[in-house]
């Protein structure tokens, strides 16, 4: 299990807190084996269909189940790609001081928590994984205790704690109304409620997930905190944490709260548009490499949810071609995959820049293209795929989203997304011009850091190669994403998998309301 391995690794690391080398060895071992196991799980999902695990031997809906369907499998693999990359990168990029106070065990618990969140099939269990993820990220964020880290962490911790409480309250109320916490079971039982009641139950949960996913207007915590921790931690956070929120949003809207897709879809579209625009405007306004990258995360969360919003709205319209919501979700899934790899890599590159020059402030950088042409090339490649230049990975993701948006007749969001793309390109060019082009800044320090670069650069290379593979293998990945989207829309397969056969399921005392669809 990809959750257990890192947890065992983390406990071993805690025992060996003072011994850096041993911790590194355990970290690498746990990272690589977990990546292997997740790949194996993903292969199993595609070959034999989704699999479940009832923990403690209690069958659903009574026990907690773990489910690996296609979306979970994709997210799991991506999680461990970034995780393994971050662990390798830490070998060279982390000062011994941080390793001694628990850098490796915390990374492993964080990765375990994220895997748990992707795999679980139980609403309360999801809450527990969220909390484990939060507490690891809090400590990783403040490890080192510099004043600016503390500044960012105060905002981050407060907002995330409030989000957790909203989530818990939402989960509690959902239990009160339906009597179950199992997601598949919920999906069926919520259909028996009045659609409005179900949507009311959805509001606290969706708000909580939106805070975690850094949606407009709830993203204040992200740019306040993401540029402060060590670069490798930023990369891990940027790649994974908000995506857990996005995953939870997709899962809850597609599986459970599908009673009023039009209302939810409109809200999601509106939020995603505003998120995109405000995020990219923040990126344009800032002048520090890592801050710009943090704001880009926000604007790209907008893209992922744009796919979800288009799909939800299209599903609400009667008689629409079923290929459209499928295409929109395909775009969202593809975008998540592309974004996790590219964004983590951009943060890793900013870490290399920091190592080389001792700063990421654009006004004090320059001329990196002359001194480090390879690094500059890798940055250019990643930045262009983020902006969505044709043939690179971001282009394919945006193509699917834009096409779905136009076919569904939702031109407003398409216009907004293209405009945001342009601004993304603009702010990436700003980094390029100021940091890589031109003359080296006279004040900047030249650090002799050859040794740590030897372990950092291969990781950056690997991530760049993965994103190149994403671009080259786009047709095959489209097919994978398409089948994922298909599975998401047809949630009955997920439900059939988890629950016992139809006849033995819970039956309501009253007939379902007229307005709701007949539950599966």
């Amino acid at each position, binding site marked *: 299990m990809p959750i257990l391995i890192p947890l065992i690794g983390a406990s071993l690391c805690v025992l060996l807190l003072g011994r850096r080398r041993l911790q590194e060895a355990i970290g690498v071992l746990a990272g690589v084996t977990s990546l292997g196991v997740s790949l194996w799980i993903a292969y199993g999902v595609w070959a034999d269909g989704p699999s479940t695990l009832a923990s403690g031997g209690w069958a659903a809906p009574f026990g907690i189940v773990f489910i690996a369907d296609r979306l979970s499998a994709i997210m799991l693999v991506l999680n461990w790609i970034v995780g393994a990359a971050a662990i390798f990168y830490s070998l060279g990029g982390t000062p011994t001081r941080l390793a001694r106070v628990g850098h490796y065990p915390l990374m492993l618990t964080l990765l375990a928590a994220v895997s748990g969140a992707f795999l679980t099939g139980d609403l309360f269990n999801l809450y527990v994984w969220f909390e484990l993820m939060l507490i690891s990220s809090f400590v990783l964020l403040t490890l080192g205790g510099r004043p600016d880290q503390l500044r960012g962490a105060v905002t981050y911790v407060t907002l995330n704690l409030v989000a957790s409480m909203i989530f818990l309250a939402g989960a*509690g109320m959902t*239990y009160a109304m339906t009597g179950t916490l199992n997601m598949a079971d919920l999906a069926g039982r919520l259909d028996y409620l009045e659609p409005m009641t179900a949507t009311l139950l959805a509001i606290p949960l969706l708000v909580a997930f939106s805070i975690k996913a850094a949606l407009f207007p709830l993203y204040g915590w992200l740019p306040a905190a993401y540029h402060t921790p060590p670069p490798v931690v930023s990369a891990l956070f940027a790649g994974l944490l908000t995506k857990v929120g996005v995953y939870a949003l997709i899962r809850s809207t597609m599986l459970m709260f599908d009673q009023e897709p039009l209302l939810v879809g409109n809200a999601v579209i509106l939020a995603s548009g505003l998120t995109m625009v405000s995020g990219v405007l923040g990126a344009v*306004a*800032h002048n520090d490499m890592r801050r710009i990258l943090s704001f880009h995360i926000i604007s790209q969360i907008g893209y992922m949810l744009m796919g979800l919003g288009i799909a939800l709205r299209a599903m609400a319209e009667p008689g629409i071609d079923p290929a459209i919501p499928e295409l929109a979700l395909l775009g969202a899934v593809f975008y998540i995959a592309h974004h996790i790899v590219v964004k983590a890599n951009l943060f890793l590159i900013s870490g290399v820049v920091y190592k080389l020059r001792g700063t990421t402030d654009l006004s004090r950088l320059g001329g990196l293209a002359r001194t480090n042409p390879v690094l500059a090339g890798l940055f250019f490649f990643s930045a262009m795929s983020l902006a969505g230049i044709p043939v690179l990975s971001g282009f394919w993701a945006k193509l699917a989203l834009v096409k779905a948006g136009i076919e569904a007749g939702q031109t407003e969001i398409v216009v907004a997304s293209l405009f945001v793309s342009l601004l993304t390109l603009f702010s990436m060019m700003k980094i390029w011009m100021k940091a890589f082009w031109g003359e080296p800044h006279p004040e900047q320090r030249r650090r002799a850091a050859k040794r740590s670069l030897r372990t950092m650069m291969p990781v950056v290379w690997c991530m760049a190669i993965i994103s190149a593979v994403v671009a080259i293998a786009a047709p095959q990945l489209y097919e994978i994403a398409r089948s994922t989207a298909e599975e998401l829309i047809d949630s009955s397969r997920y439900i059939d998998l988890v629950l016992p056969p139809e006849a033995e399921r819970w039956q309501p005392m009253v007939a379902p309301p007229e307005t709701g669809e007949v539950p599966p």
Partner: protein
Amino acid sequence: MTLLTSISIGVLYAAGAYMLLGRSLLRMVIGLALLGHATNLLVFTIANPVIGRPPLIEAGQKTLESPYSDPLPAALVLTAIVIGFGLISYTIVLLKRAYTSLETDQLDIITKGDLP
């Protein structure tokens, strides 16, 4: 019982939100703690607690008789309390560090560096 807890949940949420809106670190911690308590109490109330009716099946019967306390929310709230306790302890330590290293308890000053 349910009415009483409902009223206290409302009061706790209001007080917590009010404290969070304050501009000092200490108020913020208290606000977060109150919100946490309110949420825990909410989940607890969901069990529809009835005094003197534990969810035990009486001897000689097959099912539970109708007014009983649902045991699951109690388990949930126990988990939530433990997690909440850990998070609040961490927050207190964090805010203590922030207070000593930035030498102020005013949130405006602490977070000023981060506003766009």
